[in-house]
Every structure is written in C-alpha cells, then in structure tokens.
C-alpha cells in the first residue's frame, strides 16, 4: 500500500512543480491538479478500504527514521482514513467544481489549493503537537489565500478578520504548546496525554490555552463573527470546503487533543458545543443570505459535534458511530449546498426558487436539507438516534433536550428555506446555466448520503429490520417521473395493492394492525384512484405520496422503536412534500413540518427513556418504562398528538389541509392523521389500564380531547372556506378519538375505533368531493358557491351521507360512536368532559349544515350556470366508500365485535356484548340492523304517502322567488350564508378566539426577536470580533480555572 506520507509528497511536489513548469504546462496544470488530488484520494481511499475490510490495523508512520517522541510521527487508523478520505474527496470534487475558475485565475491558485488540502490531511494524521500547529497555520494561510480568490471588497474584509482572529488564536496555542512542552518534556500528543496535564494546577493553564485555541478554531458561539464572514464572502466553492473539510478536520483535531486536557474538561467542551449549537442556529433563523445561513448552520453542526465529543464518556464505544454519522451528513450536505449556492449566485434565500428550473438540483437540495435535519435514510438519522438512546441510558436528559432544541431551531430556518425554494415565484429569476463539472460533485455528495445511510443502517440495533424495498420502489417512481399521470397512477396503485397482499400474512393475527393497514393502504388506493382525474405529468407527486404511504405502512409493521421512528419520519417527509404542493400552502406546510419535527423529537426522547429503562430497542420496551415513566408517556403522547392535531398543537392543520390539492387533502386528513391515532393506541396499550404513572396524564388528555372537539367544531362553524371547515372538523374528530382512548376502558376504545373508521371514510368522501368542487368552481369560499345540488347531484348525495355520519344521526354508523361514548362516559365517570363532548357534537350540526347548505343548496351563482358534475374518477372512489359506510352502518357487528374481542384481554372493564345484531352494555342496548330496517321501512312508507298525496308538482325556476338577501355580486355583503351564525358568534365566539394561534405567534416572534437582538453582536467590526475572541477566552478561563 502507498504510505500516507506520499499524500504530502505528492501535493507539495506537484505544487512546486507547477511553479517550475507552470508556464510551459499551462494547458495541463488543471489536469495535473485533478490527478494529484485523485492520487491523494486514492491513497487515503485504499487505506480506508483496508480498514473496512479489516486487513490492516492502526499504523504509525515515522519520519526522519526516528521513533517518536524524538521525531514527528503520523498515524493512520480507521478514523484518520475516513477523515483524510473525505477531505481528499471533497478536494477532488471541489476542484472539479471550480475547474473553470481555477483555469481562469492562474497556476498559483491551484498550488494554494493543493497545499490547502494537503495541510488538512496532515492535521488529521499528525501525532505531534507542534507539527499540528504548523499545519494548522498552513491551512489558515492557504484559506486566507483562497478567500482572496473572490476579489471583492467583502472577501478582503472577511479574510482580514479571519487572519487576525486566527493569528491571536494560534499565538495563544503556541504559548500553550510551549508550556505544555516545558511541563512534559515532549511534543508528542500521546505522551502529553499520558502526562495528565489537566489535573495539575500549574500545567492546567497550558492545557487551557491549547484547548481554548482548538475550540476557537471551531468558531464557537459567540466568538465566531470572523468565521461567518468567511462563509459569507468566500467563493461558494471555498465555502464548501471550509464547511465540509476544515470543520471536519478541526473537529477531529479537537477530538485528538482533548485527552490531553482530561475528562474534567470534557464537560466544558460540551457546554460550549451546546451554546454554539443552540446560539448559532437561533441566529440562523433571522438570516436571509444563503451563504451566511449555511455558515450559521455549519457552525451549529460543529457545535453539535462538540457536544458529542464532550459527552464521549457517556457515549462510550458509540461515540465514533454517532460523531461520524453527524459529521458525514454535515460534510456532504454542506458541501452540496454551498455548491448549489455557487450555481445560483443568489443573495437572498428567496431567490432559491430558481432551483425549480432544474428539478435535479431541487431534489438534491431537498436531500441535503433533510440530511442536515436528520431524517431517514441519511446517516445523521441513525447517528442522532444512537445519540439520544445512548444518552438516555445514562440519564442525560438535559443534554437530550438541548440537542433536540438545537436541532429544532435548525429546522426552523432550513424548512423556511425549502419552502421558499419549493413555492416562491421564480418567473423573474434568471435561468440556470449549469456545466456538467458543477453538477457532478453535487450529485456525488447527494447520492453518497443515500448510499451511506443504507450502509450504516445495519450498524444500529434492530436497524437490519428496516425495510428498504418500498423506498426502492419510490426511487423507481422518481425515475419514471416523466410519464403521464395515468401510467404512474396505475403503477402506484399496483404497488400499493401488491404491498397490501404482501403485508397481509404478516399481520394476520393482529386485528388492530389490520384495521390500520386497511385505512392506510385501502385509503391509498382510493385516494390515488381519484388522481386519475388529473392531467399532465404531476411532477413529483407520486414519489412523495408513496413515501408517505410507505412510512405509514412502516409504522404498522414496526417491531422496534427505530423501525417505528424511521417510518414515522419518512411519513412526515412525504406528507410535507404533499402538503406543500398546494398553491398557497407554503406557510402551512412550514408550520406543519415544524410541529411534526417537534413532535418527532418528543417521541424520540420518549423512546429514549424507554430504551434507557430496558436497554431494549424493541417496541415492547414502551410497556416497561421505569425511568421517569410519566415524562416518557407525556412526551410520547405529545409527539403523537402533533399528528392528531390536538388542542394547542393543532394550528398547523387547518391551513395545511385546507390549502392542499384536492386529492391530497383526503390523504393527509383522512389517512395521515390516523398515524397519530395508531401511535396513541400503541402507547396506551403499552401503558395499560391501571398504570399509576399515567393516571394523571390520561386524565389531562381526556380533557384535552374534549376541549379539542369543542374548539374544533366551533371554529369549523365560523369558517367561510370549505376546505378549512373540513380541516377543523378533522381536528374535532381526532379530539373524540383522543378522548375515547384516554378513557382507557373497553367501551372508550370501541368508540375510538368506531370514530377512527368513520372518520377515515367520511373525511375521504368529503375532502374528495369538496376538493373536486373547489377545483371546479375555482374558489374556496362557500358563500361564492350555491345551488350545486342541481349541477352535482351525486356529489350532494355523497356529502349528505357523510354529514349524517358525522352528526351521529341514526341509522348511519356515526350513531354507533355516540352511543358507545355515552356508555363509556357513564362507566368512567367523566361526566363533564362527556357533556362537553356531546355539546361539541351538536355544534357539529352548525358547520355541517353550513357546508351542505352553502355549497349545494341556496341560489345558484351566475358564473356557475354551466357547471357539470365533478369527475367520475373522484366520484367512483367516493361511492366505494359510501358502500363501506352503508355496510358498516347496517352490520356494525361484523367490525365492532371482533374489535371488542381483540380489546378484551387489555381491559378488565365492562364490555359490549353482542347478541346477533344487537349490542348490549350494562346500561343500554342498540341494534344497528333493526334501526336500519325500521327507519328504512318507515321512510319508504312516508315517502310513498307523500307521493300519493302530491299532485303533479310544478318545478320552480330560480328567479321565481325573491332574492331578499342574496346578490350574485359581492356576495359577502348580503349573502345569507356568509357569517351565517353571526348571533352564535356573538354569544359564544369568544371560545374560539385565536388564542392558541396567537400564543404560538408570540412564541415565534419572541424567538426571532431574541435572534435579531443577539446577532447584533456581529457588528462587522474587526475589533469587535477580536474582542469577542478575547472575551471568550477570559470568560472561559474564569469559569474553568478561575472557578467562577
């Protein structure tokens, strides 16, 4: 194998040779540069390969023929191999990316670049303290040179700040090194580690200086203004390398020298890391310049890595996996993002909307952002998972909270950015001019994230159970994205059906999972079928829809917590992309994803506590949480409730569902919300009926559920937007489900199941039909509709049946839910919550009537006179569901009886017993079939009676009656169904004052204000940045050694 020393030799030799032959070889210096970088990559690559195949062990490379400490030695181990490899790869790709720039600007730049990459290799490999210092200096000088490449005033300023700051830092490092030498008599890092400098009072100052210097090299908050400026002003190609490689090398160097200080100091590294992670991300929330934003994010990620390094005692042998998982994701993502930024040349993240002109770039952009946040299947996901799990086995809850809060704040700006790119208008922006050499590096980074993600999956406990087959299918759908809708739709439905057939035997004995499988996959088929009504290619829709469904199915199938969480995140990602497809969806999808991430983190922490209690990642671990069980249950419940949009966590839903595309709304409403229900059911089953740790929690959740129904229904009643009305209705319906589950009795669960099944069916119907109508009429406002019953009779019947179900009116299946609730409430004794639930149930009539009246009844509007029925591709699936409702209403026992039997073992409370078609409880009885027969018979008889009495009725035209309160123009001024419940609003409207929305707005304003206020420290003055560095040093000193 080629020794790593040749990395240095090749790089320097080539650099010197370029100076010698530069003029003569002008044409091929570019090729030489690439060749040199390729050779360096090859050398580290072959070492990496050897380590991965276990054919070598950690090797020391001695120089000058003497053993350390007398001479300088390099070390090549697994970690060094990985780092040098990624550094050289980034160098190679970076040079490819900047090929034109380099050839324009002359030989010197190429030499500088080579030395730059080489110096980072040495900082990683060297085991000599002073040598480390020398090559760090080379690195910063080379970087300062590369910054000059931009040749702008800003770049000069940034470089100057950088030079002064690093000059001070390295001066102090030098002081530290020389004193460390004077105490230990060696410069070798390993010998210094052996000397335990950090524990001796006198030498601890030296340790302090070394440590603080290496920490400062990583640009800790707030002493990092100079670093940010470099990110902002440097050529994006250089920014990519600073973020990807300099940061990686710097983190590794810190990791290398930390043992010199000893474990007493680790805590402080974590502390600084936490400050940096949270602080930097916080300020990122106010940033609109892409490169600077990336800078904030980079520094934040490095902060996270510092936390991990500082916590390595807790993380034990998982440290490497976690750190590398985060590091590599950060590395690939940041490099890719900077490169994309270089292509776009935008000064505002809003201009990234231009990305849509190149779908590949958009895809890669999304990939990088999701990798940064830590979504599956990227390595950072697994790393974060292991991080949280391991920390919780050590009881480090505060650290978990800090890490998750920081990650969440990062999500705030990353998803705002993604939203801009996906939705903002880009017609004014120039089209992109992309050469292949700029595209290839970005592709390589993007693809490597996927490959690495899959590669590391089995390294995590239970990771091997993660099923990548659906994801492969989705990849194929991506590849086929150019095909027309009807082909892709057929393929998608085929895939879903095939998966259903494949899945069924695996869940044969598990009714609960079967029910949800039918809701998820059956729902998928039905809602996808409605997609036949769309024309064109519908770019990007199918992969994302399938991603969501894959996630949903994964949740059902999950046997371990990681499996579950993996699928949960996939589902979140898929649904985010679905939701944001709507025309005005950007802000709503944004709040959706933020709530989802926060919820996911709550779940993650809950899982962590479960894992910490059992050291078992199986899902069953949830059943036995001994470590802070109440907290764990609460976190999990809150996490799932972000998906069910319970009160307080619901504000994302109306907009997200209301503005989504017509067939996406039913997907995200009727189907997606059930994921939260499934999660809650799993959780509550694991909690068990008489768990003393959850009694209070369940009681609170009961109230939350009840109030959710009240607020949801009342808000729906005051809506003018048809789809938002339905969205609020979903909130309320899920409130019922939550309430029933929180009751934790047989009867309550039966009610919840009934509601779940009903909501799936009627909300699919309503969203499909109303969505179709909204598209057809071109307005969401109900007061602009009317009289559609004449134009769309089949839609009317579908909606009529649905609202009978929602209202709980016998004989349809909604009544079953109400009846079960009455029984459950009396049995449980939650009378007042129950009263609220029923009150809310009656309020439902307000919005139901508003919906059907304003859309279908009343007066036909002038501009709708030529409307026809909505597409049969929509009505077809709708009528399938209506048949389902009818069957469920007439023969509820076929569904509810097995559910009851399934629930029996879990609850020792009163049960619903069945006698043929009749259901009994201790309190009452109900016979769905008989009611259907009686009502049906009586109805037919009465209708017959009326018909027999009627003469030949004469049809009246619309204009035969007065228009006392409706005008076709500016209808909202006089339209009877505009603000139809004005009086009611006057009386009870205060109940739905947007208090919760205001609350969240205030919170977000506060966060942004804090960020805006904090970032004023970055005044742009060189002096201030120097001050920050010195303040950082002095304060750190006073805290650590000064004992402050």
């Amino acid at each position, binding site marked *: 194998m080629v020794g790593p020393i040749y990395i240095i030799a090749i790089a320097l030799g080539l650099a010197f040779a370029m100076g010698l032959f530069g003029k003569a070889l002008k044409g091929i210096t570019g090729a030489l540069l690439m060749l040199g970088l390729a050779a360096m990559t090859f050398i580290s690559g072959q070492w990496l390969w050897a380590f991965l195949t276990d054919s070598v062990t950690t090797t020391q490379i001695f120089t000058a023929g003497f053993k350390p400490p007398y001479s300088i030695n390099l070390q090549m181990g697994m970690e060094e191999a990985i780092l040098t490899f990624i550094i050289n790869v980034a160098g190679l790709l970076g040079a490819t990316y900047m090929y034109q720039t380099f050839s324009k600007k002359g030989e010197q730049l190429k030499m500088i670049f080579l030395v730059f990459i080489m110096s980072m290799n040495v900082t990683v490999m060297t085991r000599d303290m*002073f040598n480390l210092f*020398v090559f760090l*200096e080379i690195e910063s*000088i080379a970087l*300062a*040179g590369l910054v*000059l490449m931009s040749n702008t*005033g*800003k770049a*000069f*300023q*940034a*470089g*100057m700040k950088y*030079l*002064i700051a690093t*000059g*001070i830092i*390295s*001066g102090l490092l*030098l*002081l530290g090194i*020389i*004193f460390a*030498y*004077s105490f230990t008599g060696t*410069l070798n890092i390993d010998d210094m580690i052996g000397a335990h400098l950090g524990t001796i009072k006198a030498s601890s100052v030296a340790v302090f200086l070394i440590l603080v210097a290496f920490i400062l090299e990583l640009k800790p908050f707030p002493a990092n203004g100079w670093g*940010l*400026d470099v990110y*902002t*002003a440097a050529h994006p190609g250089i920014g990519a390398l600073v973020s990807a490689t300099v940061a990686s090398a710097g983190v590794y160097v810190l990791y290398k020298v930390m043992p010199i200080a000893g474990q007493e100091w680790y805590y402080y590294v974590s502390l600084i890391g936490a400050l940096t992670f949270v602080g930097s991300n916080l300020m990122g929330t*106010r*940033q609109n310049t892409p490169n*600077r934003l990336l800078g904030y994010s980079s520094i934040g990620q490095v902060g996270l890595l510092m936390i991990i390094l500082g916590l390595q005692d807790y993380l034990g042998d998982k440290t490497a996996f976690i750190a590398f998982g985060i590091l590599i994701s950060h590395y690939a993502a940041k490099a890719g993002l900077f490169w994309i930024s270089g292509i776009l040349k935008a000064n505002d993240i809003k201009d990234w909307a231009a990305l849509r002109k190149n779908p590949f770039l958009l895809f890669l952009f999304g990939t990088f952002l999701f990798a940064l946040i830590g979504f599956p299947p990227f390595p950072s996901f697994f790393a974060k998972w292991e991080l949280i799990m391991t920390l919780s086995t050590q009881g480090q809850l505060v650290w978990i909270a800090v890490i998750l809060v920081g990650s969440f704040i990062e999500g705030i700006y990353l998803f705002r950015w993604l939203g801009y790119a996906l939705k903002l208008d880009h017609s004014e922006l120039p089209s992109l001019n992309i050469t292949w050499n700029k595209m290839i590096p970005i592709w390589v980074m993007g693809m490597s994230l996927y490959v690495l993600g899959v590669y590391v999956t089995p390294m995590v406990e239970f990771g091997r159970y993660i099923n990548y087959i659906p994801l492969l299918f989705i990849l194929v759908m991506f590849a086929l994205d150019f095909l027309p809708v009807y082909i892709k739709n057929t393929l998608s439905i085929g895939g879903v059906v095939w998966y259903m057939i494949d899945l069924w035997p695996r869940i044969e004995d598990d009714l609960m999972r079967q029910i949800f499988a039918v809701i998820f996959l059956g729902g998928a088929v039905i809602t996808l079928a409605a997609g036949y009504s769309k024309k064109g290619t519908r770019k990007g829709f199918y992969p994302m829809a399938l991603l969501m469904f894959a996630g949903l199915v994964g949740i059902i199938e999950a046997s371990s917590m990681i499996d579950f969480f993996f699928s949960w995140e996939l589902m979140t990602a898929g649904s985010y992309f679905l939701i944001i497809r709507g025309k005005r969806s950007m802000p709503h999808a944004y709040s959706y994803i933020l709530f989802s991430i926060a919820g996911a983190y709550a779940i993650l922490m809950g899982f962590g506590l479960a894992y910490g209690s059992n050291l078992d990642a199986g899902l069953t671990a949830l059943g036995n949480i001994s470590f802070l069980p109440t907290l764990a249950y609460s976190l999990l419940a809150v996490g799932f409730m972000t998906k069910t949009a319970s009160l307080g966590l619901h504000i994302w839903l109306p907009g997200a569902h209301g503005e989504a595309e017509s067939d996406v709304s039913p997907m995200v409403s009727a189907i997606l919300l059930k994921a939260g229900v499934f999660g809650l059911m799993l959780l509550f089953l694991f909690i068990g009926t008489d768990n003393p740790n959850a009694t209070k929690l369940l009681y609170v959740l009961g109230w939350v559920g009840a109030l959710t129904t009240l607020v949801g229904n009342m808000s729906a009643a005051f809506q003018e937007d048809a789809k938002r009305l339905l969205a609020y209705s979903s909130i309320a319906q899920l409130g019922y489900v939550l309430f029933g589950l929180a009751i934790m009795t047989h009867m309550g669960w039966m009610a919840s199941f009934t509601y779940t099944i009903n909501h799936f069916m009627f909300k699919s119907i309503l969203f499909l039909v109303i969505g179709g109508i909204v598209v057809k009429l071109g307005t969401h406002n109900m007061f602009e509709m009317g009289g559609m019953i004449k134009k769309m009779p089949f839609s009317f019947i579908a909606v009529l049946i649905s609202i009978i179900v929602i209202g709980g009116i016998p004989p349809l299946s909604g009544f079953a839910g109400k009846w079960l609730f009455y029984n459950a409430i009396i049995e449980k004794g939650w009378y007042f919550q129950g009263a609220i639930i029923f009150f809310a149930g009656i309020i439902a009539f307000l919005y139901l009537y508003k919906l059907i009246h304003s859309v279908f009844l009343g007066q036909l509007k002038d501009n709708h006179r030529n409307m026809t029925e909505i597409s049969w591709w929509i009505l077809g699936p709708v009528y399938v569901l209506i048949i389902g409702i009818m069957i469920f209403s007439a023969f509820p026992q076929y569904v509810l009886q097995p559910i009851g039997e399934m629930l029996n073992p879990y609850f020792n409370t009163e049960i619903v017993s069945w006698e043929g078609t009749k259901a009994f409880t201790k309190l009452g009885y109900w016979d769905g079939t008989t009611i259907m027969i009686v009502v049906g018979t009586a109805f037919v008889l009465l209708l017959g009676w009326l018909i027999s009495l009627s003469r030949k009725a004469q049809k009246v035209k619309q204009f035969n009656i007065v228009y006392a309160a409706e005008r076709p123009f500016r209808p909202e001024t006089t339209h009877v169904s505009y603000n139809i419940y004005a009086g009611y609003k006057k009386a009870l409207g205060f109940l739905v004052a947007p208090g919760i929305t205001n609350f969240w707005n205030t919170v977000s304003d506060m966060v942004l204000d804090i960020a805006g206020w904090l*970032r*004023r420290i*970055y*005044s*742009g*003055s*060189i*002096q201030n940045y*120097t*001050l920050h560095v*010195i303040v950082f040093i002095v304060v750190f000193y006073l805290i650590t050694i000064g004992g402050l």
Partner: protein
Amino acid sequence: MEYIIISIGFALVLLGLYGIMYMRNLMRIIIAFTLFNTGINIVMVSIGYIRNASAPILDAIPAAGTTPNIVDPVPQALVLTAIVIGLGVTALMLTYVVKLHQDKKSLDINNFKDLKW
C-alpha cells in the same frame, strides 16, 4: 535574568493584544500583531533556557551517557519555525491591507463593516 526575559515576553504579548483590540488603523493593528508574536517567541526561547548552559552547538560527539551542558535545542527549533510562520502571516496581512486600501482608500477599520449579522 530568565525571569526578566520571560516577563518582557509576556508584557509584549499583552501589549500586542491591547494594540490589536485598541488600534483603529490597520497598519497599527499589524504592528501590534507582530509585537504579540515577538512576545510569544521570546517566551518560547526563554522556556528552553537552562541556567549557566551554553548554546546547543557541540564541538564533539558527547560520550555515551553524558549530557553536554547546553540549553534546550527544541524551543529554539520551534521558535525558528514560529518566526517563519509569523512572517508568512504578517506578509499575508499586509497583502490584505494593500487590497483593502485599494478597495476603499482607507486604513480605518471602521470603514470595513460591509459584512455583518
């Protein structure tokens, strides 16, 4: 003696830091920076000082097991490297100052606040 030298070194370090923080003219900042560097170099050399020892240049190969009475050569070697590095950094800073001056015709740092927040 060595205490005085090291004190001078430290004093230069502090003086340099003060200058870097206080000065507004870029050239002066660079001068302060070289003071800072020089101070560190002096400290480094004095660390290697051994009382009553001579320079680390030998007249003959010492006999096995005996140690010639010389000062520590290591800090001297290090200082050599440090000086060169300091030179490189200073030269680079000067280049930057040239570029900055070309850009804004000014050396006052308050004129270079284009990048912030």
